[in-house]
């Protein structure tokens, strides 16, 4: 029983990591109706930027803000430069370019900052809060920030015209142009926001897993899983999904005999796919009906 509670708490703590990333995933999905496989590496790169700024002695929150700004601009510019030439290329070609970006960011980061792990400071410290330190001050802080980002995102899509424009641009670019939406700008903005959220996620995650070029490799997958489980169209769902994945994974690893420990991740993923089979657009994603 005690183990159970501990594993759940630990699951929530790591789930926080996934939830952060899941938000970034939802953001990009709303903007391009697809997953960006380079997103994790972009977040990692942003985190290195933050780390560099801190090394230069810039105070934490200033560095934080700067990084978010840089990532926002970076994401926007990246989309406008790299993807402009292939605007009309099929989606698979875009996915391949995501993969290329993945390779580029990963290898650049290793080249610039090498592969040895780096401690990353937490603004909240690591004091044990409860669960005998299972949820420390940092985890708590991270969860709070995640929820704040969630609210902002939710409001953005629900109540702002630009949010609506962005969804429209992703859903039907041609018609979007016909109502005067600058589709390119919207996509760029979407990338910007996604990479900004990604940078926040990275900065919050790094203190827990240590900063290094492969930091996000698996976390992105968990982020996808969380977002997809919750429903890619629902920020709230994504966060819920993230936490669920964290908890389920731990419980699977602890309680499923024989293979549990060895197959933590596969089992978690299997469960998610199982859920999808029954709710093909995730737990909270809204179903788009096709008709003739």
């Amino acid at each position, binding site marked *: 029983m005690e183990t159970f509670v501990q594993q759940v708490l630990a699951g929530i703590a790591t789930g926080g990591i996934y939830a952060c990333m899941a938000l970034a995933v939802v953001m990009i*999905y709303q903007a391009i*109706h*697809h*997953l960006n496989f380079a997103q994790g590496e972009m977040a990692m790169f942003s985190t290195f930027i933050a780390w560099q700024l801190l090394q230069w002695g810039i105070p934490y929150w200033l560095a934080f803000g700067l990084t978010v700004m840089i990532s926002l601009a970076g994401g926007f510019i990246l989309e406008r430069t*790299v993807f402009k*030439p*292939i605007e*009309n*290329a*099929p989606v*698979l*070609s875009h*996915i*391949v*370019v995501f*993969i*290329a*970006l*993945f*390779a*580029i960011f*990963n*290898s*650049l980061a*290793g*080249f610039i900052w090498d592969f040895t792990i780096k401690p990353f400071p937490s603004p909240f410290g690591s004091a044990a809060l409860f669960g005998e330190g299972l949820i420390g001050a940092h985890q708590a802080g991270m969860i709070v920030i995640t929820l704040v980002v969630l609210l902002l995102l939710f409001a953005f899509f629900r109540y702002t015209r630009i949010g609506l424009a962005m969804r429209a641009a992703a859903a039907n670019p041609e018609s979007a142009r016909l109502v005067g939406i600058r589709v390119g700008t919207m996509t760029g903005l979407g990338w910007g926001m996604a990479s900004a959220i990604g940078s926040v996620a990275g900065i919050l995650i790094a203190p827990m897993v240590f900063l290094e070029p492969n930091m996000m490799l698996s976390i992105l*997958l968990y982020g*996808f*899983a969380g977002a*997809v489980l919750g429903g*890619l169209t629902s920020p709230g769902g994504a966060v819920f999904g993230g936490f669920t994945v964290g908890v389920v994974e731990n419980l699977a690893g602890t309680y499923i005999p*024989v*293979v549990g420990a*060895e*197959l933590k*991740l*596969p089992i978690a*993923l*299997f469960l*998610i*796919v*199982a859920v*999808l*089979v029954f709710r*093909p*657009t*995730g737990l909270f994603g809204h179903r788009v009906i*096709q*008709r*003739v």
Partner: protein
Amino acid sequence: MTVGEENVSVTTPAQRAAAARTLSPGTALSLLLLAVMVLCPFFISGFQVFQLNLMLIYAIAIMGLNLLTGFNGQFSLGHGAFYAIGAYTAAILMDQFGVSYYWTLPAAGVICFVSGFLFGLPALRLEGVYLALATFALAVATPQMLKLSIFEHWTGGVQGIVILKPDAPFGLPLSQDQWLYFFTLAIGLLLYWAARNIVASRSGRALMAIRDNPLAARSMGINVALYKSLAFGVSAFFTGIAGSLGAIVIQFVAPDSFTFVLSVALLVGLVVGGVGWLPGALAGGAFIVFVPNIAEEISKGLSGAMYGVMLILLIYLMPTGAGGLIRTVSDRLRRR
């Protein structure tokens, strides 16, 4: 007879003629290519033959992926899994049961068809991104499954399985590399022929109809669920055979040989070769084998980045892959 068609009609015969004209160069070209592929093993080093062999093997795997993604519109980031199943089938059969290498191919094919078909069933309900995640999950889970200690007796666990490379039969004056190359080439041609038949057949049309418009396809009497699963099965069949060939040529299988990187490589190969264009698989295979080496030549420390940059440039050069490029070029020629 309406105006619109007059319009069209003007162009059609021209295009038909053009088609006729470009057809012969097309076949000529492919025959030339074939000739080159048959002859070159005699003029290059064993190691290069080995590389070409790998290229062919990846091409076969990509061809399988193409049937699923290009012709049926289902998106898979997990084909490395089927490649792995094929490879392990071959390795286990040869290592534990002393089966001769050529019998492992059909076995691998069948096993992969079944697993592909079964995976296709839940995948039925998933589309686009959701399917992408499911398949990606499969890719990520594969090495861990292969490591699983309860299968260790067969899979050799983390240590993997070492197998022996076959010699050329009936005392043919061929090195192991050359023999395996021709073996692979033959299998590849056979599968290519089969793939083309499928695409040109009733089943193939059903697959493409589902890709273009599932609802209409259903109303035309196409059992969408069945054909989608079949697509997965057949696709896995091809990729699995490629996997077993891979195992035979590499002489070794281990979980680390089949990480998600492999699945991603196959997808990249598919797109570079041209989605929905079977011969593109060759270009894709070549990309998988050679481009990383080129990237490494340029810069060791940044080989990853170089690879990425080259990939992007390639996509700029041919946004719809080699297939698309060739199509546009031949269109240009036509208009002359």
